[in-house]
């Protein structure tokens, strides 16, 4: 099996989809000739032609709407929003249209679109290239929301998303496009090459949506997170010497409640972690659901480790990002609470 970074894995997923399904079309700003500003669609236009992989105008509402219309005609569009921060112009088309077409038409029309967007901070993108707006979308009935944390899942989940029957918002943690990130900003750049999830099959495979994965087993507490922070959590637990169980959620809507409750019932202590601001963030949903289902197993208050309730500040990016030091403190707080 070849080693791939997340971008190569995503590219490979789209290559497989274009090859296997003639109704697959891919478009977005700079996605065609240039292959995307991060290179996720590189080479695909050359291989499959201008009518399969093409550039779209800078109008995110148009991109989403075009995808909806195409899907209604039986195509399988994969639309790229250049940065997740720019998904808001498309918000109405996603929230009011794409998500609800099946419901509003009682199944007469469907809209199985995949919207891909580079997501999250950690690349010095400032407030307009760093957002993680997942909670806006997990609040919307009818869309699935995915955040993979490694090349293997990224490819398998993108294929599953495109081959499924529902609209999927597919957020790609751009900080870990090229390699995992331990949450220490000055540490040397790592690569996916020696990571087990960097081994990616060339051909077709799926990773089922809606399933979480326990990436580290432990007894002392449960960490529930997704995306870049999965790697920060793993490193923080090792560094702190805390026997934490770490769950990579992978799909946020619908999230895998069974894996969560089984782990929390075992450990009795919980950290929910995300980069997005704290108030009404996805961690709030997790905390509420856990206290409903596991209240009597809890031995400490649920700890929310999140970004602050501010936009992502450019110069103070690492004060905003829940890096390794904050993670270690969170783990200590939760495990030491009596």
């Amino acid at each position, binding site marked *: 099996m070849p080693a791939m970074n997340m971008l190569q894995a995503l590219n490979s997923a789209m290559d497989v989809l274009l090859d296997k399904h003639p109704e697959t079309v891919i478009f977005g700003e700079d996605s065609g000739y240039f292959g995307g500003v991060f290179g996720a669609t590189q080479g695909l236009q050359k291989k499959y032609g201008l009518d399969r992989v093409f550039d779209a105008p800078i109008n995110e509402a148009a991109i989403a709407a075009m995808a909806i219309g195409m899907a209604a005609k039986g195509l399988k569009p994969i639309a790229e929003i250049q940065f997740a921060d720019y998904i808001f112009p498309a918000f109405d088309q996603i929230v009011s249209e794409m998500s609800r077409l099946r419901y509003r038409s009682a199944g007469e029309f469907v809209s199985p679109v995949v919207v891909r967007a580079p997501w999250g901070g950690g690349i010095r993108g400032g407030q307009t290239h760093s957002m993680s707006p997942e909670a806006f979308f997990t609040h919307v009935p*009818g869309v699935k929301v995915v955040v993979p944390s490694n090349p293997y899942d990224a490819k398998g989940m993108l294929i599953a998303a495109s081959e499924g029957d529902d609209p999927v918002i597919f957020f790609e943690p751009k900080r870990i496009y090229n390699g995992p990130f331990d949450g220490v900003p000055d540490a040397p750049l790592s690569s996916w090459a020696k990571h087990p999830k960097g081994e990616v099959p060339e051909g077709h495979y799926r990773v089922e949506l809606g399933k979480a994965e326990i990436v580290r087993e432990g007894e002392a507490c449960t960490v529930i997170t997704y995306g870049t922070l999965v790697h920060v959590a793993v490193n923080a637990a090792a560094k702190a010497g805390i026997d934490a169980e770490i769950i990579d959620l992978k799909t946020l809507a619908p999230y895998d409640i069974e894996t969560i409750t089984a782990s929390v019932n075992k450990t009795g202590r919980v950290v929910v972690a995300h980069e997005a601001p704290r108030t009404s963030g996805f961690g709030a949903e997790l905390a509420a659901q856990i206290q409903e289902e596991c209240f009597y197993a809890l031995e400490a208050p649920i700890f929310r480790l999140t970004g602050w309730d501010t936009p992502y500040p450019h110069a103070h990016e690492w004060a905003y990002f829940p890096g390794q030091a904050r993670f270690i403190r969170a783990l200590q707080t939760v495990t030491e609470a009596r």
Partner: protein
Amino acid sequence: MSNGQSRFHVPAPPFRPGDAPDFSHLDLQKAGEAKRPDPLTAPAKMTDLAFGMIGVLDHNHQAVGEWDPRLSPEVLREGLSHMVLTRIYDARMLKLQRQGKMSFYMKSLGEEAVAVAGAMALEQSDMVFPSYRQQGILFARGRNIVDMMCHCISNSRDNLKGRQLPVHYTWAEGNFFSISGNLGTQFPQAVGYAMGCAYKGEDTIAASWIGDGTTAAPDFHAAMTLASTYRAPVILNVVNNQWAISTYEGIAKGDAATFASKGLGYGLASLRVDGNDFLAIYAATKWAADRARKGCGATFIELFTYRADAHSTSDDPARYRPKNEFEVWPLGDPIERLKNHLIGLGEWDEDRHAKLEEQMTALVVKSYKEAESHGTLHDGPLSPTHTIFEDVYATEDWRLRRQRQDLGV
């Protein structure tokens, strides 16, 4: 225009309640005057069509000029019949709404030709992305009236399981896209659909309609950009009925341009059409469909008409415009005009017209009885309660399963 000084400017309609409306300021091109270029002509070579007015029926109800589609009397009578049905259906539904049988209703009084002629000039296999005021398309395409009513009263036979506000129809079998309550969203979706048709190498096309007020929405510009960029086989119609609830057309476009002229900057073939002239709408739509099928891309059409009744059952137009405005409005009543044209041809008469109206009234009354036998919003039966959890996703996940069990359904 200006006294040489910058001033804050908000355009206002020429008449308000109490004023005597007078449309003599409108410089409308006469029927028959507009040239009809070959459909394959480059948009830049026919920009005059965006400022003039394509009309076929003249003041004497005769068909004149190059745009006359030369339709057979059978087709004209069919169009008349769909328009009459639309008007009678609307009137009846309004009455039922007033009696509390329906929560809400929207009529298309005065603009029946827009939907009926547009639909008749398209193929049944072409997908339409309408707004809420093109119910005439459903009649022209032969939608079962009982089904339409069952939707409006959200009963057990509502094909939308009681999920949509009345008049927000969906009919996939008839290639009638699901109507959204969010204005304008269907405009760029129609372009995407049309691109899908082209992608699949089919010669079906898409057509969409929005109101004049909705041209101000971002989705309008999204659609125009997509349509021109990808040369999509689509017809984008703006129904300029001059009012967006209480807001007059100038608030969406200022008080100088025409809506049709907005298409020119996008490089789209752009036509301004008499929206109360069945023949002109038919001819323009056919021409645009021809262009689309021949690979010349999109056409943008402004249909100049007038919303003769209230915006919806929640609106009272007497509070913002003169009551008799429609009567003095120069383009008349689309049904009267087609009727008189047919009479002039010796293909119709008042007796036959009265009989048609009687027939349609009877059909509507009978259909409503049948619709009501499947339940009403007020008294039920409705679709089973568990259906509220259906069709959110292709398959129910644990969240919906648990919530459905919570509700005990």
